[in-house]
């Protein structure tokens, strides 16, 4: 699936988008896999309360299932308007 990062999450991880091969059942499982990769991922995901997640462009929770998901995005709370 495609994993996207926005705002400071993008800056901390160092890229806007990447292809990730994973069997993670939930968003939380995917986060665990990413955190185990490298320090920059571990740092970006250290405080999940500071992050939001969208699966296939719909806001959801970290316990959301990933079956069939094509795109997961991680970002800080939004600041529009």
């Amino acid at each position, binding site marked *: 699936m495609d994993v996207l990062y*926005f705002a400071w999450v993008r800056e901390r991880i160092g890229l806007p988008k990447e292809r990730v091969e994973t069997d993670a059942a939930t968003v939380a499982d995917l986060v665990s896999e990413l955190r185990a990769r490298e320090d920059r991922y571990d740092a970006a995901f250290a405080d999940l309360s500071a992050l939001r997640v969208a699966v296939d462009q719909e806001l959801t929770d970290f316990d959301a299932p990933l079956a069939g998901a094509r795109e997961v995005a991680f970002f*800080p709370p*939004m*600041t529009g*308007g």
Partner: protein
Amino acid sequence: MRIVVQEAPFDYGAECDGFATGRTDVGAVVTFAGLVRTDADLDRMEIEHYPGMTESALTAIAEEAARRWSLQDVLVIHRVGPMRPGERIMMIATAAPHRRDAFEAAEYLMDYLKSRAPFWKKEHGPQGESWVEAKATDEDALSRW
């Protein structure tokens, strides 16, 4: 309903003037514009967004407003990219037979647009750059709906 996400500035006067005109069933139009405000030393602001999700999130918010209130038209324009203090960031407009629907729907749209549409503001100044943090009051504002 019209939802626009663009880098270029928009003509606020022309948009207000052209909104919900040419019909006789509209009794109330509410318009709102958000501007880049200088709180401290701010040279410019940059807005990042999530192309695709931004448009679908704004459309979903506008559709929900249309379900809750008696609306005849809704307009949302939101800019992305670099902006300077004093520039307009975004605008909304609502049209309804009566003012209460137009006012309430406009407030609802703004409350949801601030914390449920994927935009992120970054401020650039002499001290460097920083991401604008979401306020707890913005999140609390959703609970009244």
